[in-house]
């Protein structure tokens, strides 16, 4: 059983009279432990595809099996539960809560999973240690560098032991050196913990870290190539 399987997904947006076909008949299979880069120019549908994979958006038609269960047409709250337990998000703009300490940001997914305060704190600290931020628990986002903020976001994605991390341009706001550090962290998590990483990027250098690359153009998958490990 594949971890993720999309079957003939279409996504149509209505902008007034105009209908935009953002995804056309997209069928992709992703196995556990893969490290995938989704690439394409802007407007190619890669972000839409990411939103569907992330259960933030529902496809207009087609089915999306996550661990063999069709989640394409679940209601808001069911999708929220799936995001909470199965998916970790890393965004270009970090999307941390300001005025909230690093450890509390990491605790956030557990808060909505009804986990007791003591366990939350423990697991959040452990997740921060995993991403190399031990001792920064009480720092607020504005006291951390961009790379550190993105590490907090990765810790937040890890903390509920989600099998999948969805990273949308995770290095878009970072300099080259920090970008490489973040990518190396994702590679390490992928290799050591068998976490499936799905990355959206338009930078070739960043995509180099992946082992499989899916290219989108005009809402259609135009190529899907697996790179032989050198």
């Amino acid at each position, binding site marked *: 059983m594949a971890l993720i399987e999309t079957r003939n997904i279409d996504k149509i947006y209505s902008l007034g009279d105009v209908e935009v076909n953002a995804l056309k008949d997209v069928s992709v299979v992703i196995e556990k432990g893969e490290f995938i880069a989704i690439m394409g120019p802007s407007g190619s549908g890669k972000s839409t595809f990411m*939103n569907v994979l992330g259960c*933030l958006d529902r496809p207009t038609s087609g089915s999306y099996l996550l661990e063999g269960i069709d989640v394409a047409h679940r209601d808001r*709250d069911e999708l*929220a539960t799936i995001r909470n*337990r199965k998916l970790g*998000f890393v965004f270009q703009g970090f999307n941390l*809560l300001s005025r909230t300490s690093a450890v509390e940001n990491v605790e*956030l*997914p557990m808060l*909505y999973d009804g986990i007791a305060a003591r366990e939350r704190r423990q697991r959040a600290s452990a997740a921060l240690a995993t991403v190399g931020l031990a001792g920064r628990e009480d720092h607020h986002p504005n006291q951390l560098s961009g790379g550190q903020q993105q590490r907090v976001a990765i810790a937040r994605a890890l903390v509920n032991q989600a099998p999948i991390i969805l990273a949308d341009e995770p290095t878009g706001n970072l300099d080259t050196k920090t970008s490489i550090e973040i990518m190396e962290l994702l590679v390490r998590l992928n290799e050591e913990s068998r976490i499936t990483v799905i990355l959206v990027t338009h930078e070739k250098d960043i995509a180099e870290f992946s082992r499989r690359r899916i290219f989108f153009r005009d809402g259609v998958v135009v190529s899907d190539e697996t790179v032989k490990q050198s």
Partner: protein
Amino acid sequence: MINVPSIVSISLRALRVNKMRSALTMLGIIIGVGAVIAMLAVGTAASKKISEFISSIGSNILMVFPGATTAGGVRMGAGTQSTLTLADAEAVQKECPAVSAVAPVLNGVAQLVYGNQNWSTGVSGTTPSMFTAREWAISMGRVFTDQDVRSASKVCLLGQTVGDNLFGAINPVGEVIRIKNVPFTVVGVLESKGQDPGGHDQDDVVYIPVTTAQKKLFGTSFPGMIRMMYIQAVSLESMNAAERQVTDLLKQRHHIGPMQDNDFSVRNLTQILQASEQSAKMMTILLGAIASVSLLVGGIGIMNIMLVSVTERTREIGIRMAVGAKTWDIRLQFVIEALILSLIGGIIGVIFGVATAEILSVVAGWDTVISPGSVVLAFGFSGVVGIFFGFYPAYKASLLDPIEALRYE
């Protein structure tokens, strides 16, 4: 599902971020709750005063006064005619089944002397029924007896105020005072009844047997004349029957034909006072209702601020949704935030309201009564306002699209 303590701490943090804004929003609720409590305190005190007086005159009391005299076409006012007699009082007692007690009154003003003290006050001649009808207890000594009335004994019963003024710390029972130079033995002192609604001191009085009053103090050319009578009906329901029976009997005794005016009047004081008690209660409700309008305005203030807050925090809502917050997690967060605003405002408002009532009674001299009910009502109402006006912003927040919300700048 998120647990409540976590939501409360999230909400408290959010409120602390905008301290000034939170404080101003609360101010609306503080003023509203404070106004409700202060207004109810004023209104409650007014109706309490009236109901205290109702119980001080006794229950189911009718008063009968003689009619007005007419001198050359000028009517002189109720009580100027000397038409009521002791015999009338006795007849009422005997012949009206709805009447349980009758106390005749013949009163006047006299100078009292004890030792080197003197005091001018109203002296009322009556019978012991007066004290049972008005449920008036004795604090010292005893009430004079029917025997004292029959024999026109020179005994007297002092009101609290008179006792204090003539005797100070001395026990008056058994002492002899002079009323218009006639010596009277004090047999007892009445308990205090306080002021009537007109501010008249009900304890500034001396009671003596009615017969003694007629023979020794206020004797007139018209023997047996009395100034009024207190009549107690057997029950509240029988007051109308008693009023009718007394009127019929007195008409018959005074030979008044069907077309003639009565030479006496019967007043149902309890009824009049109950009506004014009702209107005082209405006034209280009205004051409370006006004050609760300000509470409502405070609630609209909360809704306004919560709507602004939801818009400002769109991105935060998006993040929470992305990591798994469900519809009700978001709703509860904002409802509880509004609830905290209104409840803290409510607590401060209670303090503010109680303080205002205190200040009104100390500075303006108004009577105020803070009833626990009004505090609970105002505080509870502030909570309801918080939930009611917090719900719409919370509902709006919960319907945001997570993708849109995450992109919000």
